[in-house]
């Protein structure tokens, strides 16, 4: 179990975030396909939403790095 804590800390954090980023990207593509003129605005809000989502995966990553390299 000790060995598993690092991969689990990152893996469980990254899995839903990866799904969510896929959904955000796909929906943004849909939106750009329907309304290509609005692509600039869509891209900005898409990147912001992805940044929020990705932060959650990054928490897991930071935890995994701390477990691996500290103490």
């Amino acid at each position, binding site marked *: 179990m000790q060995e598993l804590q690092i991969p689990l800390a990152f893996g469980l954090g990254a899995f839903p975030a990866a799904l969510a980023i896929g959904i955000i990207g796909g929906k943004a593509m849909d939106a750009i396909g329907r309304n290509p003129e609005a692509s600039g605005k869509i891209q900005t809000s898409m990147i912001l939403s992805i940044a929020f989502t990705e932060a959650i995966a990054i928490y897991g*990553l930071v935890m995994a790095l701390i477990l691996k390299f500290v103490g």
Partner: protein
Amino acid sequence: MTQLHISIAAEEIAKLGSITVTNSLLTSWIVVAVLVFLFIKLSSSVREIPSVKQLLIELPIEMIYLLCRSIAGRKAAIFFPYIVVFFLFILFSNWSGLVPGVGSILVKSHEEMVPLLRAPTADLNLTFALALVSVGLIQYQGVKSQGIKYFGKFFSLRPAKAFIGFLELVSELSKILSFSFRLFGNIFAGEVLLVVIAVLVPVIAPIPFYGLELFVGFIQALVFSMLTLVFFNLATVRHEEED
């Protein structure tokens, strides 16, 4: 894997009086010096008909300005100086970790070999400081545009509003955490990735990852400054106007 030298904290390389100089601190001084030198030199020779050098700097900065305009509208002129400084400092800090020699030149400190230089944003202290400055400026912009009424968002006597105010307070604090961890996590993970790939396959294989890290460094600088801008914008909107 024992020969890998990875440290999650920046390492001490010298002491100036009571101040500990870490390798990240040294690199951030170099980044600031480069930026200041570059812009003082260029601003002394600004002309109406730009030279090629002036044009090369003006173009990206104008693109950032147009992006600010599309988000903040007419308030962009007030916010732009903060945003562009955040953007340029973080961008150059992120990219400084990719310069050959950063992380690979070692010096002796406390009987141990440590890297002389390290990307500033790969140190949690610096990203946390940046996040504090950013969230502090958000409160400053809020107070500047709405006066004391800005804090009405956080504190209220009506129970339902008081609860929402408490949530707003928590979200303000979590902004500090998410700003600092996002930047630190991305850049430090990039450094670790490059080291691991370089140990596994030393030739050719690291090249695409350098490209990826250039891209990640740019995107993270953009995300940090754009989020700051969006929060500036939210803080300066009066709530009566919304209804």
